[in-house]
């Protein structure tokens, strides 16, 4: 068996709010293999995004260890951390919201190539065209401003930005939740294609158990910061054992179609 790509053990994060301490993440452990999709599911406030931020080292844990590509990720700093960050990327719900809407697609894709020293200035336009192609977009989108492209195209650009640095793991926090169903399927297929071709692993956060079941290998179900249960995504969602797992499955809207599509 491979050694895991990412191992999280005993992770904990507390917040103080209104005089009370909230255990946002409480003794959470899991591992992700190369090329695997691990989903995090759970009700609002169960700690999914906090785990994402901890794994990305956007915030520091109160306790626990994170091993990434064989190293103690929490001990890395300076240039070693920067180099390793290129291997660990993220896509959020509206990932381009933070950018100036007048910024061009080319500019957005140029950033990671420049910052991580992946391609020389002369080489970058070609790299940008290649990236657009890898996410199923036409290269002539490059000069467009991000406010001039559709929601589905924006999410493809966010994915292109994430894969620009050849990551081994991408954290996706509700990355398809705001998309119309007609483009959601295309984006999920793009993610699966990239995974098959480039062996990228995903930490896939979603409140939608249907989507989790369709694309994840394994799932971790969280409740109040703790792991309620975990296992093969289809087995867990097909027959949840925990109270919260059962409640989530029960609450998922079901479309009863009698005719085959």
């Amino acid at each position: 068996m491979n050694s895991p790509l990412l191992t999280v053990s005993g992770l904990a994060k507390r917040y103080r709010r209104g005089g009370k301490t909230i255990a946002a993440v409480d003794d959470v452990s899991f591992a992700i293999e190369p090329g695997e999709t691990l989903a995090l599911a759970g009700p609002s406030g169960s700690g999914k995004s906090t785990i994402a931020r901890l794994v990305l080292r956007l915030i520091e844990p109160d306790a626990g260890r994170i091993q990434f590509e064989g190293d103690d990720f929490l001990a890395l700093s300076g240039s070693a951390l920067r180099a390793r960050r290129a291997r660990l990327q993220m896509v959020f719900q509206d990932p381009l919201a933070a950018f100036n809407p007048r910024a061009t697609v080319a500019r957005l894709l140029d950033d990671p190539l420049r910052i991580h020293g992946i391609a020389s200035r002369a080489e970058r336009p070609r790299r940008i065209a290649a990236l657009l192609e890898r996410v199923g977009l036409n290269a002539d989108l490059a000069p467009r401003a991000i406010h001039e492209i559709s929601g589905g195209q924006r999410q493809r650009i966010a994915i292109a930005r994430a894969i620009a640095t050849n990551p081994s793991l991408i954290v996706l926090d509700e990355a398809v939740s705001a998309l119309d169903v007609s483009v959601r399927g295309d984006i999920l297929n793009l993610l699966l294609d990239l995974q098959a071709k480039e062996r990228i692993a995903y930490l896939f956060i979603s409140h939608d158990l249907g989507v989790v079941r369709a694309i994840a290998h394994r799932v971790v179900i969280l409740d109040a910061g703790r792991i309620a249960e975990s296992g093969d995504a289809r087995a867990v969602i097909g027959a949840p054992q925990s109270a919260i797992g059962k409640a989530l499955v029960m609450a998922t809207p079901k479309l009863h179609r009698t005719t085959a599509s």
Partner: protein
Amino acid sequence: MTALLSIRDLSVAYRRDGREVAALKNINLDIASGERLAIIGESGSGKSTLALAIAGLLPASARIGGRIDWQMSEFRSPHQPSCLRKTPLSGRDIGFVFQDPSASLDPVMPIGKQIAEVARTHLGLGWPQAYARARTLLERVRLPDPGTALRTFPHQLSGGQKQRVAIAAAIAAGPKLLIADEATSALDTIVQAEIVSLIRQLVSEDGMTLLFVSHDIALAAELAERIAVFRHGELVEIGATAEIVNAPRHAYTRALLDAHIGLDAEPMLRRAGASA
């Protein structure tokens, strides 16, 4: 089946950057009294525009064509019960619940007062009766400890609890029509299911008509008796829920149904020689 309202050739256009954008094009639609009708469609298809048009809440800049005829003989007038109006009033005859409850709740007013004020304004009640009604409403939307809850502020409540309060305020004046525009979209699945079941119960207890706007076809099918499918400002098709789900006439409806990823969907994952 008596119609609550008939929409005839309704068109709505917004002005944006000096141009007119058509948001609804020649919509013809009857809403039956007491029915639960869902409006579904993708982002920008005109769902909210229709809901706002029915509630008379479109911005003044919107250009409106066509008619909305209310078949009800009269609407109550709070202060002069003998005076009956021909047009409905939003807040009294129509209750509206938005996606973001914070948008409809005043952050600096206790929630009890907000609900009582609706009852005072539209039913002509005095404060004591209005507060009593607010308390009953908080019980009906199953907010824990309603007596104390009257004095709490919106920021002290969770998203789901805020939406319960918004629903209480929306039904405070006993409206004929309740419009819920993506009222559960920002909530997690479990809270969404609770709010949907609450809406179903309130609508049936009070004999209200429900217009349920959603982009989620499965959720719409669980709640509504009829579904209207919108696309690019047009009504693609409308029918009984079972018809729309099992025998859609329009290819677009079929595409929406096929794009739904339910708990019984075919897995999309090809095990890519990776993990064990």
